[in-house]
């Protein structure tokens, strides 16, 4: 923003209008309570002007303070009697009606600014003390046997790491794909197909052995049928390509014969 080719202007940044005012007072080397409103207003406006010249964004709070200062200044020029009916200020942030009030607020702000400075010092001090695990700031994990410490920045707390570990650990056990297959064991399905066929005593389409709509079940049923055909327990009949596959039970006595001729799509690996 303040940068043009090879030309940098550094302006101190202010936390707000009070901060700026406080800075101006300090620069003037006067006590807060003996500040001349006229002078401080002038300097304040001059600063805002320089900000504007540099095309810096001026926060609205700074402008409200400028207006407040001008109002205070103008009031000082007017005879006292005119001040009785004071109009209400809309913005409660700047409910400042007298220079006295302004000074008081500045004084209060100065107090907290000092505390903030004190906190900054304490922060620096505390930063020098390393803890085993500082409330999520530095978490150390022992990796391997060579006592290599690594700091995992993403961790907010030791519990994050514990969770990460448990996620990795449980990932091995949690295998949804396999568990789905296990629901349909080929041998069980074969038994089911055989018993159903025996019960119904008629050829049935392959579809009728698929109870759900899971792809896994269809695959298991198909593999079971192929297996059964290989073992010569069933006959498979498909009238045309992609047509329904009819399954019929092989008569017991035929089951041990070599090959049953027919339009079978069953195969045993060929």
């Amino acid at each position: 923003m303040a940068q043009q080719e090879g030309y940098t202007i550094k302006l101190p940044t202010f936390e707000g209008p009070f901060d700026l005012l406080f800075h101006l007072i300090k620069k003037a080397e006067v006590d807060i309570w003996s500040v001349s409103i006229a002078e401080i207003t002038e300097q304040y406006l001059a600063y805002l002007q320089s900000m504007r010249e540099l095309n810096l964004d001026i926060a609205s709070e700074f402008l409200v303070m400028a207006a407040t200062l001008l109002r205070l200044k103008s009031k000082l020029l007017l005879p006292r009697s005119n001040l009785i009916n004071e109009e209400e200020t809309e913005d409660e942030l700047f409910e400042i009606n007298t220079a006295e009030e302004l000074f008081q607020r500045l004084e209060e702000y100065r107090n907290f600014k000092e505390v903030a400075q004190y906190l900054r010092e304490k922060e620096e001090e505390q930063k020098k003390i390393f803890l085993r695990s500082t409330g999520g700031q530095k978490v150390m994990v022992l990796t391997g046997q060579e006592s290599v410490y690594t700091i995992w920045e993403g961790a907010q707390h030791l519990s994050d790491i514990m969770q990460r570990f448990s996620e990795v650990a449980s990932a091995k056990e949690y295998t949804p794909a396999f568990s789905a297959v296990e629901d349909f064991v080929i041998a069980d399905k074969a038994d089911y197909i055989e018993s159903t066929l025996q019960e119904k005593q008629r050829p049935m389409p392959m579809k009728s052995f698929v109870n759900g709509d899971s792809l896994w079940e269809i695959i298991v049923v198909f593999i079971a049928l192929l297996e059964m055909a290989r073992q010569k327990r069933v006959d498979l009949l498909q009238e045309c390509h992609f047509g329904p596959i009819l399954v019929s039970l092989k008569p017991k006595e035929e089951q041990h014969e070599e090959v049953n001729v027919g339009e079978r799509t069953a195969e045993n690996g060929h």
Partner: protein
Amino acid sequence: MEREQQKMVIEALLFLTEEPVTVKKIGQVLSVSPEEAESLVCELKENLSLSGRGIQVFETAGGYQMGTLPELAPHLEKAFSEDVSSNLSTAALEVLAIVAYKQPVTRVEVESIRGVRCEHVLDNLVKRKLIKISGRKEGPGRPRLYSTTADFLKYFGLKDLSELPELELESRPSEETGETLSRDAEIPAGVEQIKYDFENQNGDH
């Protein structure tokens, strides 16, 4: 248990614990009074500093904690090169200072002291758990009240709030009063009036 052994237990306890441990807790572990625990901790503290160790026991956030010596920081920083947490901004420190003294305090009260909007800073401090929303002020809009947390004390290595410097201008409000609408000049008279009206209205019902 012998005194030396009791101190060893405290050392081990502080070594293992990430959070500050209260003397009450130490007392429970050793089956001694909190006062006795306090004196044991102080002895341990002294023993550690006299025997040239890299660690120390220090008081923070209402308890004791073990940490490294500050003068070792330049060396330790080489091992733990990444300074994970950046320092707080000046704005954040100013807001924290105000909340610490004025708590429980509303956003508007904080803003009136700083003369700047602070919503964003307050939100970030809540996220960092340095302050918390401790309740709501009775009155129009029931604004949130902010207070500092134990993490605030820990972050700055303060025993308690009394370790903060005295404010010159005004007397510090007591921390535990639920209703701390100070009668200071920075609270706009209008708000006071509205609050008063509101309370009276409530009383009528």
